[in-house]
């Protein structure tokens, strides 16, 4: 287990994340969830400095394809350059006087023209058109007025990340042990994953870290999601195999729950729900995985579920469907959640249908589970406002090898959070 590297105490006070291994106690002060100061410090110390997920390369498959979205609460857009074929992420602001230059949610274009004064940029960001250019002096450097790329943009296996800190370590180093779990997903689809059309863009009136916890929380599944499990049973899924598993510390605050799948998986574990006609197809997929990756790795790809949290705010869950979910706070008690479904390109229609069904019934904001998570998170936030209780307890499983329904994975997240926050992770006495 990673030990906390206690930063030097700079404020007179105490840590907001309090680990006491001797007494098997790990607790987090509720100010982490409610304080405006903590929120402002998070924006600066976490969201300005960590690699944040932007999107997937399949969303901009063709030259000139673009998608516009906020990253770290800043409007940016991702575009595949027509000339270079490279994926760029630009700040969505005209270098002239500031208006946003990408005004559609997605599309394909050769140029981005600011409507305000009609400055025109190409898909590589170069400034190509300035009405009345002769009005400018000959020494003005127009090349320097290209669209501003986000300080760092790198991608791993199709997942595009950006970082606003020019001095950040490379993405591959940042991802650490999470890389292998992204590999498992991408390799299982022969390297050809795509984001399915249709985005879940919902909102939770709760602190963003509650969703980080919830996304890898095996302990809540049975009590919170009773109606979902009833739904699965009604469909004919045999849950008796259980969801036994464990969690792993992937380094840098990333963590994963890995557990048995009692239900079917489009890659590549058949269950009656898929229909007899899909049986051979899934057996064939599985045989290909075994031939390519060996029995052990193929079995992990096919038979296990993985809920992964990539610090700070990316969740990639490979359950019955694959979700890519990111969430960003707009206030201590409010976050915007954006979730996409990822699937192998060109998979069989009946497998795609099953995957879509699984996603929307479990993971979607109108499904049989996510609304109850939303309720749980909002309920916690409301409870915090009651006061009287200062700390959340996250001690489950401290005295044993972590089970899937323990809280070791949350402790991994919180330790990293405390490191990143440094002195801001202290609570000044009397504040």
């Amino acid at each position, binding site marked *: 287990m990673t030990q906390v590297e206690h930063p030097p105490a700079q404020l007179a006070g105490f840590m907001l994340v309090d680990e006491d291994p001797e007494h098997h106690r790990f607790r987090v002060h509720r100010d982490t969830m409610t304080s405006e100061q903590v929120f402002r410090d998070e924006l600066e110390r976490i969201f300005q400095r960590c690699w944040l997920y932007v999107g997937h390369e399949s969303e901009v498959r063709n030259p000139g394809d673009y998608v516009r979205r906020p990253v770290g609460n800043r409007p940016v857009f991702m575009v595949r350059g027509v000339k270079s074929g490279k994926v760029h992420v630009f700040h969505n602001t005209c270098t002239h006087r500031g208006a946003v230059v990408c005004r559609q*949610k997605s599309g394909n274009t050769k140029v981005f023209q600011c409507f305000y004064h009609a400055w025109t940029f190409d898909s590589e960001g170069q400034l190509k058109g300035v009405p009345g250019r002769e009005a400018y002096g000959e020494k003005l450097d127009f090349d320097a007025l290209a669209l501003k790329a986000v300080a760092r943009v790198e991608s791993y296996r199709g997942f595009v990340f950006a970082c606003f800190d020019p001095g950040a370590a490379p993405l591959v180093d940042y991802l650490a042990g999470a890389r292998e779990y992204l590999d498992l997903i991408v390799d299982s689809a022969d390297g050809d994953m795509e984001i*399915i*059309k*249709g*985005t*879940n*863009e*919902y*909102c*939770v*009136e709760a602190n963003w870290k509650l969703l980080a916890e919830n996304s890898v929380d095996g302990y809540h599944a049975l009590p*919170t999601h*009773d*109606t979902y499990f*009833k*739904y699965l049973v*009604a*469909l004919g899924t045999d849950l008796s195999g259980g969801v036994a598993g464990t969690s792993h510390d992937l380094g840098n605050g990333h963590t994963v729950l890995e557990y048995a799948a009692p239900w079917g998986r489009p890659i590549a574990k058949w269950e009656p729900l898929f229909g007899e006609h899909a049986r051979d197809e899934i057996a064939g997929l599985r045989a290909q995985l075994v031939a390519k990756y060996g029995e052990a790795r193929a079995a992990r790809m096919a038979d296990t579920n993985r809920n992964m949290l990539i610090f700070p705010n990316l969740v990639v869950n490979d359950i019955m469907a694959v979700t890519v979910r990111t969430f960003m706070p707009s206030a201590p008690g409010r976050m*915007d959640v954006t979730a*996409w*479904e990822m699937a192998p390109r060109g998979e069989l*229609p009946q497998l*795609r*249908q099953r995957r*879509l*069904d699984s*996603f*929307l*019934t479990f993971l*979607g*904001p*109108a499904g*049989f589970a*996510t*609304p*109850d998570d*939303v*309720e*749980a998170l909002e309920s916690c936030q*409301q409870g915090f406002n009651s006061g009287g209780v200062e700390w959340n307890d996250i001690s489950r499983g401290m005295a044993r090898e972590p089970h899937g329904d323990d809280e070791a994975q949350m402790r991994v997240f919180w330790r990293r959070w405390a490191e990143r926050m440094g002195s801001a992770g202290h609570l000044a006495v009397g504040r």
Partner: protein
Amino acid sequence: MSAATELDLATLDRAAVEDFLYREAALLDEWDLDGWLTLWAEHGTRYVVPCNDTPDGDPAQDLVLIDDDELRMRLRVERLNSRKAHREYPHSRTNHQVYNVVLGSPVDGDLPVTASFTVWRFRNGKASYYVGRYHYRLVVERGEPRIRSKRAVLDMTELRPAGDLAIIL
């Protein structure tokens, strides 16, 4: 299609359709979801809500918010009737408003109907709204209008103002 069905569909004028849609809205607002289920046709039913960013979303290929066949609709109602649909226990108060009702020409024995909707949802001191347009296919079974399919297309560019969609639109 039999002549009798054509005749029944033909008697469904806008006033009759509006009465039917108001009855549906009242059942939803009263949380009489079992009663709501009886408004549906016997076979081939479908209740769909596309994602906000893909109003033309096809549930066979694209991610949608809701894609309920008869079984899933029944299980959704069972869930919402239980005390374990935490997001809706206690239930929200809702107000389903239906207007701008337009009847199309019958297609394959179904009557296409579109209508605007505003659904207000009030819970825990919070007010949220869903605004969009319904696309119905209605049929007549045993002399009563019934819903074959219902597609609720949201006009809001994102679901965020409403949070989630645990209720039935």
